[in-house]
């Protein structure tokens, strides 16, 4: 199980900001979330959404270990 975090408007769309997801790769996690919640799936596929694996931005797919933290980050707004 990976810990999945949603930030900014993604959390508002999903109605949650943190949960566990049973999947072993980044794109599999995204597909799993999209299958459950198409509106969230659309929001995750929007331009500019980045994925951080264990607090490091990753481009493309990557395997996800059992204790991993996966965060979906919409475009950052600055403070």
């Amino acid at each position: 199980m990976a810990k999945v975090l949603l930030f900014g408007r993604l959390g508002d769309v999903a109605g949650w900001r943190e949960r566990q997801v049973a999947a072993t790769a980044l794109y599999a996690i995204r597909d799993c979330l999209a299958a459950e919640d198409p509106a969230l799936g659309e929001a995750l596929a929007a331009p500019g959404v980045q994925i951080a694996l264990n607090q490091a931005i990753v481009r493309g797919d990557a395997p996800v270990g059992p204790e991993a933290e996966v965060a979906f980050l919409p475009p950052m707004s600055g403070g």
Partner: protein
Amino acid sequence: MIALTEKVFDPGALLSEFCRGRQETGAVATFTGIARAEAGGTSILELEAYPGFTEAEIGKIADQARARFGLHDVSILHRVGKIAPGEPIVFVATAGAHRRAAFEACDFLMDYLKSRAPFWKKEHGPAGARWVEPHAQDHADAARWD
């Protein structure tokens, strides 16, 4: 110090602490960003960070600033959570031997913080809440250093 806080802070207390005991620092520049009331247009600003990740990303830029401007020290405190008009949002202090470097580093750090730092910003106004993106001016300001 690079830190996030959910509490109201006093920028003056941070400046006093930052200046203490300096013998070779000729110049300390600071910037304090304050939430504006916009004549009632914005009632509450809400900032979300990714704890750990956000401080680490800001720390990378602070290290760039140290190297690029030859700083003696940098301090950054950023509010997260709900911020009322008149409350400080961000405090940046830079210390160097001379004033040009201290000013430019502070300016550089603020341009980064306002446009590219990992925060997500929501404005709660009379017409409801909305997530906001950086202004074009913020992107243009940040691009000056590229």
